């Protein structure tokens, strides 16, 4: 706990926990309205095809069916974030197996399923572009022949199947390679992995007689969904109200429109409320799973282990639509630099169209893919130079006041402390404690996404406080953190704060629960609101007590004068309600721009990391020489969180992020064959269970950010970045085998061991 704080910095229980442990907390998947219909979506089984015919006549006659929709029934609009290339239903052409062709609403889920069966679809299969190599091959067909006509962010560098090429250029890589004693070139690949939230995506939509639609959904971004639905439905945003009842996990998979548009369109057609919820099969075939990636790295280094130049290229398979791809390709270039001082850089990230689902953002998008490559190569370099991998990192990491790859000046850099602390904790000096047993280390950096947040805060007549925020609580306890900030500044207890959140009609704007920003940005907005409220409270109290404002103190739910006389917050709230409309404040925050050198970037949507965080992971594991099976013995994380607003839930972010990262490292992969997913169920898509995850040791390093509330930095995404690299490095340390593709399955290890055998 930081000296001088009462509420922030303490491990207080989250405010929404009682409802969650008793089953009374409401999630979007639980939400229902009387007389509600059930919607289902018919999806293509072909990755690429011409639509010959879709006949819904029989489906419309199935008992209980109230609406049937195809592309012919909905506005012909293309929507999307950075490139408007998406459509609600495939119109003439199918571009991935899983693409929606039609949707139905019926009085029962069984009725809706029967109606889907009754839709007659004739597709003429076409040759599909199944991966990035095929999409970029000379003369390759275009996934979107009309790509150049699409509305897109002007900053993007688009060309055919490439929907963005982001680039960072610093110095002269050729000169840097000439200065190097050794040059290392490697290629790494990573597959698609799913966020694995336990609550399916769900939405209920209902129209009222005035033409307003209300959508209850588990989106992370209610305000973005409002805008997107307005485009799709062709009505003004003010006619779309999005409410988030509760979310059962998101991790980036619930950022973009998923089922909300189907619910709204079906409800408009049927004249009744409609609920649409995804199945596990839909999640694994037609959601926003992480982009598969190919990374090529060429790094020059001196004999002493000083990095002189890096040329890095990363290709994301973004699937049939751009989605998050152009932005994630941009972020990737910053991740390819790593948290290292490298004077000469040529880094490129590309998002490439293929005939697959529109891959998207997953916790620290681009982070694990780029870090796996960068940190694997650091160990390869260290081994080749005869240097300790920790020592190689310490010779090259960034420090306070140095530049990031695009010229941003780095502040609050706790990286060296993180590296030294994890190394100490894992007993790094003893790197290979036994045959088949080894330790690995990896480090990285990440952004605290900016964007703006607003809150309304009012004092209730009983002296408690209502916090009204447009941000959704996705499970991180970020809104408990923000409420701690508010309680701290207003002299009340955490239990005095009630949170109302995520309703586009009634709550102030928020950029959304994404990018490790919620506690950071909403917390700062709370500080602004508290400062305003405090002025109002003290002015009113001064009149009541007949004292000077400067002699008053706000504490313990009251304003106290120097002579001990006091007036409670409750009294002041009641007085204000009777005479002045109540005590209420609008607090806002927008992250200040991070200056960078614009000459170094091209096609870049995200040129600098706001209030960056730094982190290091260390793992000890053993490998079974016969089966290749990996057993993790210890896992240690040191993360620079700036200021630990609530240590328990920060540990929770670290433990959960590492568990997810270990899934990506060892077992998870959405397996494609000829454009179709082979393992679209939770038996064959292998997420870690309680027996697969080791105990995780968290070390919270605190180099306060200049911007965040009480010095806090974003904490949610980073723990997901380093696990694949740390595991790969530990496997190499244990058995001398370097696996350069994820996941590092027992099968890959066993095969590699067999090839290595004399």
């Amino acid at each position, binding site marked *: 706990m930081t000296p001088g704080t009462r509420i922030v910095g303490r491990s207080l229980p989250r405010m929404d926990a009682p409802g969650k*442990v008793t089953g009374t907390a409401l999630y979007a998947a639980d939400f229902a309205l009387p007389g509600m219909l059930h919607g289902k979506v018919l999806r293509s089984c072909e990755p690429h095809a011409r639509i010959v015919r879709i006949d819904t006549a029989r489906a419309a006659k199935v008992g209980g069916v109230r609406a049937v929709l195809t592309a012919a029934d909905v506005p012909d609009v293309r929507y999307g974030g950075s490139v408007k290339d998406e459509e609600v239903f495939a119109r003439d052409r199918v571009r991935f197996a899983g693409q929606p062709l039609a949707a139905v609403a019926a009085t029962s889920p069984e009725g809706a399923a029967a109606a889907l069966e009754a839709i007659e679809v004739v597709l003429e299969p076409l040759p599909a572009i199944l991966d990035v190599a095929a999409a970029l091959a000379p003369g390759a067909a275009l996934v979107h022949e009309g790509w150049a006509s699409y509305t897109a962010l002007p900053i993007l560098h688009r060309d055919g199947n490439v929907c963005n090429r982001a680039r960072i250029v610093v110095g002269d890589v050729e000169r840097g390679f000439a200065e190097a004693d050794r040059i290392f070139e490697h290629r790494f690949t990573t597959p698609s992995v799913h966020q694995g*939230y336990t*609550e399916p995506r769900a939405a209920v939509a209902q129209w009222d007689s005035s033409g307003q639609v209300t959508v209850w959904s588990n989106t992370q971004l209610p305000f973005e969904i409002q805008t997107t639905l307005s485009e799709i439905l062709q009505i003004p945003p003010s006619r779309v109200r999005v409410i988030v009842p509760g979310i059962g996990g998101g991790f980036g998979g619930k950022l973009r429109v998923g089922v909300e548009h189907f619910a709204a369109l079906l409800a408009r057609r049927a004249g009744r409320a409609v609920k649409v919820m995804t199945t596990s099969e839909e999640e694994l075939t037609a959601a926003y799973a992480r982009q598969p990636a190919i990374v090529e790295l060429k790094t020059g280094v001196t004999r002493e282990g000083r990095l002189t130049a890096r040329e890095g290229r990363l290709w994301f398979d973004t699937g049939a639509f751009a989605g998050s791809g152009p932005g994630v390709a941009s972020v990737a270039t910053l991740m390819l630099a790593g948290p290292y001082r490298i004077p000469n850089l040529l880094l490129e990230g590309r998002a490439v169209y293929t005939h697959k689902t529109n891959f998207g953002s997953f916790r620290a998008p681009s982070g694990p893919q780029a870090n796996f490559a960068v940190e694997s190569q650091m160990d390869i370099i260290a081994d080749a130079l005869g240097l300790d991998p920790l020592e190689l990192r310490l010779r090259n990491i960034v420090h306070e006041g140095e530049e990031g790859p695009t010229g941003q000046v780095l502040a609050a850099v706790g990286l060296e402390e993180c590296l030294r602390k994890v190394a100490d904790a894992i007993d790094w000096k003893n790197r290979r404690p036994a045959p088949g047993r080894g330790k690995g280390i990896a480090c990285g950096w990440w952004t605290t996404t900016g964007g703006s947040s607003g809150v309304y805060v009012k004092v209730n007549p009983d002296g408690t406080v209502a916090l009204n925020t447009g941000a959704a609580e996705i499970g991180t306890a970020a809104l408990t953190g923000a409420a701690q900030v508010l309680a701290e500044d207003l002299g009340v207890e955490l239990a005095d704060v009630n949170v109302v959140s995520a309703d586009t009609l009634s709550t102030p704007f928020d950029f959304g629960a994404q990018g490790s920003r919620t506690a950071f940005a909403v917390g700062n907005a709370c500080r602004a609101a508290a400062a305003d409220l405090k002025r109002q409270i003290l002015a009113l109290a001064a009149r009541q007590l007949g004292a000077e404002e400067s002699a008053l103190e706000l504490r313990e739910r009251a304003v106290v004068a120097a002579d001990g006389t006091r007036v409670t917050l409750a009294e002041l709230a009641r007085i204000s309600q009777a005479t002045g409309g109540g005590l209420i404040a609008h607090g806002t925050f927008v992250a200040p721009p991070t200056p960078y050198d614009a000459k170094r970037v091209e096609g870049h949507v995200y040129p600098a990391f706001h209030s960056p965080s730094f982190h290091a992971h260390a793992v000890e594991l053993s490998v079974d020489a016969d089966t290749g099976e990996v057993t993790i013995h210890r896992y240690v994380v040191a993360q620079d969180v700036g200021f630990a607003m609530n240590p328990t839930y920060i*540990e929770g972010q670290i*433990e959960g992020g590492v568990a997810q990262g270990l899934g990506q490292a060892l077992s998870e992969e959405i397996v494609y064959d000829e454009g179709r997913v082979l393992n679209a169920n939770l038996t064959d898509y292998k997420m870690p269970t309680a*027996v697969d995850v080791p105990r995780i040791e968290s070390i919270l390093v605190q180099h306060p950010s200049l911007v965040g509330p009480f010095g806090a930095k974003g904490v949610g995404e980073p723990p997901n970045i380093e696990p694949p690299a740390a595991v790969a490095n530990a496997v190499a340390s244990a058995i001398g085998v370097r696996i350069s593709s994820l996941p590092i399955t027992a099968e890959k290890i066993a095969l590699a061991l067999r090839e290595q055998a004399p």
Partner: protein
Amino acid sequence: MTTLALSLTINGATHEVVVPPHRTLLDVLRNELGLTGTKENCLEAECGVCTVLLDGVAVNACIVLAAQCRGREVTTIEGLAAGGELHPLQRAFIDRGAVQCGYCIPGVILAAKAYLDEVAAPSADEVREALAGNLCRCTGYQKIVEAILSVTETR
């Protein structure tokens, strides 16, 4: 459509429902009785969010037919806090920070209860084994395991 009149004992109270014979316990709990504390996800007994107790044994309600529950005791998360007093597991999950998004938590708590009713003083590894049928994507299971062990230590 054929229907069955079922008398179900859920959290100690009797409920009469008339449903088609293929309806699952999960469906009846959530959609007939409004007991949405039992969660819905994979519907093929892989994720464990629908875990309830059937005569004290943890089962996945998504693959149990409601008709199979006649004459048996069903306990859902709503029935665990007796007389408004939180069950020690619920208290421990709150106090130990074991809850994040919370969607898996009702199932996890019930699986833990069934296990602790059989094994009074398990090891951490045994608790993990007992939870292997309950996926959690937020917590990495650590604080869940700690919360469960804390209950065994205090009784």
